[in-house]
């Protein structure tokens, strides 16, 4: 699903190239409105003059600066994750080539940091491409148009992802209680490291690989989105409430705002396995999307 596309003449597809470049620019520099709302409303919960308040104020200021100056919100522009829905018979290979070119250009322009490193030699490719970078998840659908969602997920928060296998002596059995305790442990361990306040994407079930993948996909939901499954909606809310009573606070400085949201999905599992996979996202929760028209133009911006 990932590839290094050959250098390509993008002149064949200028509209799609421009659309994707603009998608990258927006994603790296403009935090989505729903995330901004959550950060802003958290500010008033913290004690005046506390380190927690200082942290949230600086974050608020940073969000404004990045947007105004069209510069990256965070210097770690992260793993570049494209989630693409395409109509049947659409040329996904060509999309991948154009998107890879757009990534190269965005790196040159400073919207993205040089973030792709050979895992054996340690050499940075310098343009964000190479085996596994960028990442593409393609899905076909029966709609007539292409929809592209892009998420940039930084390394600091990615390092705090965790996967639990239930039952577990400390967390409990294969039920929602066990799941809840596992997620709370992840929040405890992630403190200070993943640039909180954080947002969690969780997958209950799946295998180790698909579980992590689906946990990340939960982060494509908006902050306000409520789970259609009532038991999971309750759990999502309870996790946020408990996390915010932990006292961890922004940056782990202590305070009331530890978690801004928790989004949980499920996948079926094998009878023998029960994984809880948690994708931890930092406050710099960069996700944007675009609906692409027939000529490659941006028809509608998402989020």
């Amino acid at each position, binding site marked *: 699903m990932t590839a290094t596309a050959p250098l390509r003449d993008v002149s064949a597809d200028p509209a799609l190239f421009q659309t994707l470049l603009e998608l990258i620019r927006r994603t790296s520099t403009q935090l989505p409105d729903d995330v901004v709302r959550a950060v802003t409303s958290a500010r008033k919960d913290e004690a005046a003059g506390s380190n927690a308040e200082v942290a949230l104020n*600086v974050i608020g200021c940073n969000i404004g*600066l990045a947007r105004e100056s069209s*510069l990256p919100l965070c210097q770690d522009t992260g793993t570049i994750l494209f989630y693409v829905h395409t109509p049947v018979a659409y040329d996904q290979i060509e999309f991948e080539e154009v998107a890879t070119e757009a990534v190269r250009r965005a790196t040159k322009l*400073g919207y993205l940091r040089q973030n792709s490193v050979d895992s054996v030699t340690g050499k*940075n490719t310098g343009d964000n491409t190479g085996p596994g970078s960028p990442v593409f998840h393609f899905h076909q659908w029966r709609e007539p148009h292409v929809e592209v969602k892009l998420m940039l997920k930084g*390394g600091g928060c990615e390092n705090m992802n965790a996967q639990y296998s239930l039952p577990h002596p400390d967390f409990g059995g294969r039920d929602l209680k066990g799941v809840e305790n596992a997620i709370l442990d992840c929040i405890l361990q992630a*403190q200070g490291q993943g640039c909180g306040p954080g947002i969690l994407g969780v997958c209950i079930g799946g295998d180790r690989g698909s579980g992590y993948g689906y946990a990340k996909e939960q982060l494509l939901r908006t902050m306000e989105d409520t789970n259609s499954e009532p038991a999971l909606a309750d759990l999502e809310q309870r996790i946020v409430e*408990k996390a915010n009573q932990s*006292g961890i606070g922004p940056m782990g*400085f202590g305070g009331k705002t530890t978690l801004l949201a928790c989004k949980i999905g499920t996948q079926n599992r094998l009878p023998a396995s029960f994984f809880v996979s948690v994708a931890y996202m930092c406050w710099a929760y960069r996700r944007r999307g675009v609906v692409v028209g027939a000529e490659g133009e941006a028809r509608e911006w998402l989020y």
Partner: protein
Amino acid sequence: MIKLETPLTEQSVRDLHVGDTVTITGRLYTGRDSVHHRIHEGTKPPVDLKGQIIYHCGPVMVKEGDQWVCKAAGPTTSSREEPYQFEVMRDYGIRGVIGKGGMGEKTLNACREYGAVYLHAIGGAAQVCAASIKRVDGVDWMDLGSPEAIWHLWVEDFMAIVTMDAHGQSLHKNVFEESRTRLAALKA
């Protein structure tokens, strides 16, 4: 708000306490994983680090004409340097580290022994940090790749919070213990 100027004196560092907000003016050297690793392997740092601050940061740098310009420069996770940081304090006399997430016992002990502090910048606040970087005066070890190189930054009023001091105190340790107790009480 306490104003600091680099290079730092031992006394100015020992006067700081966990929870203090400081602003820094002067030279900062970036250094992260590969730099610490290379120093640990025995290579001498290319700059005099005495009294200086190492900033755990992999900035976005763009060359405009002959000049490097810093486009984004927030802190990176410091715990990755835990195996090496105390050596750099001991052998090269750095007085401060800026990063995020705090560091462990080895570094905390070195802070006390050699007179150094850990300063926490606001993670992810790359533009706020970059705004106080007034100049990029040079770079060493570019062969490590741009995010891993040693960038010579000149900063004015760079804000950070003292989370580990030279008196053996660590805000990270305190918050971790407290939150562990609280979360245990909230267990399902």
